[in-house]
């Protein structure tokens, strides 16, 4: 295992060292100490390595991640796992606003709560939150799955497209064009796999599914005077 002291060695050194790791690297396990809320830790990785961050991170941790597995033992700042492509990111604590925003793939697990705008404009990423999520989550979400074991805040799934939103607890309010949907066997199957991968013991049957009512997909002539 390689250990990297962020405070002593600096962010540029860290990210360029991690970027230098390729598919065949034999340095597959990294531990980062003293993150102290720094921005952009382990951003833009593209190798099947494991990065364990000991502490809390600031803005954009794990952004644009491909292949790598990143664990944060504390909490994470805004924009965590933003635009993730593949791989897995696990936050042991809470995540600040817009976690997993615009993500195309991979799995983001938040073991605590996520703040507002979780999964905003998600494009294929899977996000599992063990706790609650804040307002405007999954705004304009396009595809992928957002699983919330706790409660969701105001305006869940506002103007969303084809993302699936699963919530076990209460939903404070649904956003425009978001509605509760039927839970079919294929959804139970997806949930079961995601919950297992995210280390959650929640039962798939306890969740409700929400998604787009598809009323905003086409222009409605009755609304012509509104513009």
């Amino acid at each position: 295992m390689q250990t990297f002291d962020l405070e002593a060695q600096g962010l540029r050194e860290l990210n360029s060292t991690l970027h230098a790791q390729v598919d065949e690297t034999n340095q597959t396990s990294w531990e980062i100490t003293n993150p102290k809320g720094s921005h952009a830790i382990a951003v833009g990785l593209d190798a099947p390595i494991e990065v364990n961050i000991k502490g809390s991170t600031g803005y954009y941790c794990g952004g644009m991640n491909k292949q790598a597995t990143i664990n944060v033992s504390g909490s994470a700042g805004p924009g965590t796992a933003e635009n993730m492509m593949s791989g897995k990111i696990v936050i042991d604590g809470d995540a600040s606003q817009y976690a997993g925003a615009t993500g195309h793939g991979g799995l983001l697990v938040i073991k605590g709560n996520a703040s507002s705008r979780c999964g905003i404009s998600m494009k294929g990423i899977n996000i599992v939150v063990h706790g609650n999520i804040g307002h405007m989550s999954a705004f304009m979400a396009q595809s992928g799955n957002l699983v919330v074991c706790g409660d969701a805040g105001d305006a869940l799934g506002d103007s969303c497209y084809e993302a699936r939103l699963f919530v076990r607890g209460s939903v404070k309010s649904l956003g425009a064009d978001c509605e509760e949907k039927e839970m079919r066997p294929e959804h139970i199957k997806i949930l079961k796999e995601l919950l297992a991968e995210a280390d959650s013991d929640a039962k798939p049957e306890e969740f409700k599914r929400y998604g787009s009512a598809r009323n905003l997909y086409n222009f409605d002539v009755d609304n012509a005077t509104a513009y």
Partner: protein
Amino acid sequence: MCGIVGLFLKDKKLEPKLGMMLSEMLVTMTDRGPDSAGIAIYGNDENNTGKITVQSDTPSEDFKGLEKEINALTGIKVSIRTKSTHAVLEMETASIPAVRKALKQIRPSLRIMSAGDTIEIYKEVGLPKDVAARFDVSSMSGTHGIGHTRMATESAVTTMGAHPFSTGNDQCLVHNGSLSNHNSLRRKLRREGVHIETENDTEVGAAYLTYKMQQGSSLGEALESSLEDLDGFFTFLVGTKDGFGVVRDPIACKPAVMAETDQYVAFGSEYRALVNLPGIEEARVWEPEPATVYFWTH
């Protein structure tokens, strides 16, 4: 952007270190807004005197013999402590209005930063580390304090555009965000006789809270009503003689992190600002909810 920090001490043993802890927190936030910085410190109210903090662009001329001139004009006994471009005048609390009036007459160019029993505000254009060093903030003790580092958006980069803003005795406000209805609200408040010095949006926010409290609201109630009457983005941190309060607008784009232990309550725009506080690893750390008023008092 802009960076905000705040520290409210529960443990009296930390009071001598307040200035040091707060200025370290503020310096960490430098890259959120490097154009100007300011700090409000609430000192210990031991000798029951009141204070007025004033600022001058020509301190050596303006502050020389000022206390004697005030005394000659009003008969009020005033002592003066000079710190770079700022000076703290101390007198009996009841004499504050008379001294303010005298200052207007003797030194109309002096800017009043704050007035009250315990508050002192220091702010200038420049980096937080330079501003903190200039006023020797690290050596200051106190019960609580707030700080701000600014990235100007709504008005010019000047001393008076820097935060904190104080429009009432022992009250001050720092702000991250921008208010969009500050012009109409400024006109409204001025019609009500509220004195607003600058074209800055945050000063209107501070004046609004002061006005509400003059009308009989508690600080908590004033903050609640700000959610109705202020339009725009804001994370506010408000100081009073007894404590501080936090409120975020309902959209809550502007970041905020809080930490609480048995020794203190701390606020930072980012967790980075809090990492060197004692016992932070065991502290309860959370983000204040949108449109929710939080308040701590001694």
